[in-house]
C-alpha cells in the first residue's frame, strides 16, 4: 500500500532497479531511439532563434503535435512500470488514478484551452504564471505561481531523472550514476538547444511510440490470459476483492485519486502551457477527442499488464513478484516478442524524457521570466538565460537524484499536488470568473504552497499521519479552492473590477 499512498501524495515514478535488460535487440532499439531523438533535436535547434521559439515553439505547432505532445508530457514512466505494478498490488482501485481521463481533457478544453490560447493572441505569453499575472494585474501572484512551479519542478525532475537513470542502467548496464547523467545529458542536449520546439516534436515521436507499444502489449495481454473473461475468472477464484471497484483500497482512497487527478489536471503547467503553442486556435475543435483517445490507448498497458500478471501468479504460471514494479518487465520478457519488449522499454525512456523536457522548459521559464517579473525586473536576453537556466535546473535535479534517494522520494511526492493546489483556483477558476480577485489568487496560491509543504514535511518525518484515504494533495487542493472563493468574495468590492479590457474580452468570448 506504500505505493498507493505515495501516488496519492503526488507522482510516483520508478524508484527501484529494473531487472537487467542488456540484450542486443533491446540495446539496438534503444540506440536507434536515441538517434531519432538526437536528429529531431538538431532539426529543432536550427529553427530556434527567439525566446518565443524556445519557450512556446513560436506559436507554430499543429493539432496533432499539441495533442500527442500533451499526452506524452502527461504520462511519465509510471504509466508503464509503476502503474501496472500498482494494479498488480491493489487491483482495480489503482485505476482511479487514470479513470478521470475520459473527462479531464474535455473539461480542460472548455475551462482553459481556448482562454489560454486567446491570451497568447492578445499578449506575449510564454509561461502559465504570465496568464495569472495578466488576469489579476499582479506581479506578486505571478511570482508566487512561478515559485510554486519551480519548487515542484525540481522535485518532479529529480524523481524522473532517477527513473531515467534506472531504465538506462537496466538497458545498457552502465550503473545508476552513469545512467542518471547519460539520461540527463541526452534530454538536456535537445532541450537546451532546441527548447520546447525540440521537446514537442520529440514528444510527438515518443507519444506515437508509447501508444503503439501499449496497444500491441494489450493484444498479448488478452492472448496470454485467454481474454479479459479468462483473466477475471482466474482472479475471482482466489481473490474476488482484487476485482472489486476499489480493489484493496478504501472507497475514500480511490475516490480521492479521482478528485485529485481529475480536478488537479487543470493545474498541470507542463500540459496547460502547450495551449499557447497552437498555430490556429480554431484547431482546438478536435483537441479533446485526439488527446483523450491517445491517452486511452496508451493506458491500455497500465490496466492490462497489472491484471494479466496477477492472473498468471494466481494460476501458478509465474511465481509471486518480489517487487510490484517487476510486473511489466516480467510480462514483456516472458510473454511478448523481444522486439516489442525493446519498443516498450524505449517507450518508458521516451515517457520519462518527454516529461523531463517539459519540466526543464517551464522551470527555466519560471526562473528567468516569472521570478524577475515579480521583483520588477526583466531579463535582457531571455533566450540565452533560458538556456542557461535549463542547464542549471537539470544539473541540480541530477545531483539531487544522484545524491540521496531519501531526498528524491521526499521531493517527488508532492509535485502533482503542489501544481494542482496552487494553480487550479487562480488559473482555472479565475479565468472563468470575473469576480475572482487578486487577493483571492494570492491567498489561494499561498494556501496551496503552505498546506502542501507543511503537511508533506510532517508526514514525511512521521510527525503526523492522515487516516487511510486522506491525502495532503486532496486537502491542499480543496483548501485552496475554498480560500480562493472566500477571499475573492470578501474583497470583491475593492478590486473586483481590476481586469484589463483585452483580458476581459478573452474571458467573455
Amino acid at each position: 500500500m506504500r505505493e498507493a499512498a505515495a501516488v496519492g501524495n503526488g507522482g510516483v515514478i520508478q524508484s527501484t532497479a529494473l531487472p537487467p535488460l542488456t540484450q542486443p535487440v533491446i540495446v539496438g532499439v534503444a540506440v536507434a531511439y536515441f538517434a531519432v531523438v538526437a536528429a529531431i533535436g538538431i532539426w529543432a535547434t536550427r529553427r530556434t532563434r527567439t525566446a518565443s521559439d524556445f519557450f512556446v515553439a513560436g506559436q507554430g505547432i499543429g493539432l496533432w503535435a499539441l495533442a500527442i505532445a500533451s499526452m506524452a508530457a502527461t504520462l511519465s514512466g509510471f504509466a508503464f512500470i509503476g502503474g501496472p505494478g500498482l494494479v498488480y498490488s491493489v487491483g482495480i482501485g489503482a485505476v482511479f488514478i487514470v479513470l478521470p481521463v475520459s473527462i479531464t481533457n474535455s473539461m480542460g478544453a472548455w475551462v482553459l484551452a481556448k482562454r489560454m490560447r486567446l491570451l497568447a493572441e492578445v499578449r506575449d505569453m510564454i509561461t502559465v504564471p504570465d496568464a495569472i499575472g495578466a488576469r489579476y494585474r499582479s506581479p506578486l501572484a505571478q511570482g508566487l505561481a512561478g515559485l510554486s512551479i519551480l519548487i515542484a519542478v525540481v522535485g518532479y525532475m529529480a524523481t524522473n531523472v532517477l527513473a531515467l537513470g534506472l531504465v538506462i542502467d537496466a538497458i545498457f548496464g552502465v550503473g545508476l550514476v552513469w545512467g542518471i547523467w547519460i539520461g540527463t545529458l541526452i534530454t538536456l542536449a535537445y532541450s537546451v538547444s532546441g527548447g520546447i520546439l525540440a521537446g514537442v516534436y520529440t514528444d510527438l515521436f515518443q507519444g506515437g511510440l508509447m501508444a503503439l507499444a501499449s496497444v500491441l502489449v494489450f493484444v498479448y495481454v488478452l492472448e496470454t490470459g485467454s481474454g479479459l473473461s479468462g483473466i477475471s475468472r482466474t482472479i475471482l477464484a482466489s481473490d474476488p476483492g482484487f476485482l472489486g471497484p476499489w480493489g484493496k483500497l478504501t472507497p475514500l482512497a480511490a475516490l480521492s485519486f479521482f478528485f485529485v487527478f481529475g480536478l488537479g489536471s487543470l493545474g498541470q503547467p507542463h500540459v496547460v502551457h502547450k495551449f499557447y503553442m497552437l498555430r490556429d486556435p480554431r484547431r482546438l475543435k478536435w483537441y479533446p477527442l485526439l488527446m483523450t483517445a491517445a491517452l486511452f490507448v496508451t493506458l491500455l498497458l497500465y490496466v492490462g499488464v497489472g491484471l494479466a500478471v496477477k492472473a498468471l501468479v494466481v494460476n501458478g504460471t509465474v511465481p509471486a513478484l518480489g517487487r510490484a514494479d517487476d510486473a511489466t518487465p516480467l510480462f514483456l520478457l516472458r510473454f511478448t516478442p523481444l522486439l516489442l519488449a525493446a519498443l516498450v522499454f524505449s517507450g518508458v525512456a521516451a515517457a520519462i524524457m518527454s516529461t523531463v523536457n517539459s519540466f526543464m522548459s517551464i522551470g527555466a521559464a519560471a526562473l528567468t521570466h516569472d521570478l524577475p517579473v515579480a521583483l520588477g525586473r526583466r531579463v535582457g536576453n531571455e533566450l540565452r538565460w533560458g538556456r542557461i537556466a535549463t542547464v542549471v535546473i537539470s544539473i541540480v535535479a541530477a545531483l539531487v537524484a544522484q545524491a540521496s534517494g531519501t531526498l528524491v522520494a521526499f521531493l517527488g511526492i508532492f509535485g502533482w499536488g503542489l501544481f494542482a493546489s496552487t494553480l487550479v483556483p487562480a488559473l482555472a477558476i479565475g479565468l472563468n470568473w470575473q469576480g475572482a480577485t487578486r487577493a483571492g489568487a494570492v491567498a489561494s496560491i499561498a494556501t496551496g504552497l503552505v498546506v502542501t509543504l507543511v503537511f508533506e514535511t510532517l508526514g514525511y518525518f512521521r510527525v503526523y499521519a492522515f487516516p487511510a484515504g486522506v491525502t495532503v494533495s486532496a486537502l491542499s487542493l480543496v483548501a485552496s479552492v475554498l480560500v480562493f472563493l472566500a477571499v475573492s468574495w470578501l474583497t470583491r468590492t475593492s478590486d473586483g473590477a481590476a481586469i484589463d479590457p483585452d483580458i476581459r474580452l478573452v474571458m467573455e468570448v
Partner: protein
Amino acid sequence: MTRSIALGALLASALLIAAAYLGALVADSVPVWASWALMLGTSTIMLAMTVLGASRRGAGVGKLAVPFAVMFAVLLVGFGAVLVMPAETPSSALWFGLPPRAAVVLYGIGTLPLFVLPFAYALTFESMTLSDADLERVRCVKQQRSGTAA
C-alpha cells in the same frame, strides 16, 4: 445566471469534499457517509468546473446542457451503483469480461464520457466555443493594443 449557479455548485461541492475529509480526520474509522459525500462532491465539482468553462456571458451553456447532464449522470449513477451493489464472489457474472462493479467503473465512468464529451465539444465548437467572429474581435483588440503602444 449559469455562471452564478456553477459557482454556487463549485462552492457547495468543495464544502462537501472538505466535510468528507474532516469526517475521516475526526472519526476513529472513516464514516460511511464520507465516501458518499466525496463521491457527490467530486462529481459535482467536475460538472461545475466544466459548466463554468463552457458558459458564455449571457448565453449559458445552451445545448451543451445535454452532454453535461449525461456526464453528471454517469458519474453519480456509476459511483452510486458501485457503492451499493453486492461484493464480488468467485461465481460473479461477468459484464464484457469484468465483474459488474468493475465493469461499471471501467466501461461506465472510464469510457462512456469519451464517446460524449469530445464529440459535444467538436460539434458545438463554432457556435458555443470559438467562432470566426470571436477570433476577429480578439485580434482587433490586439491590433488596438499594438497601435496604442506604438
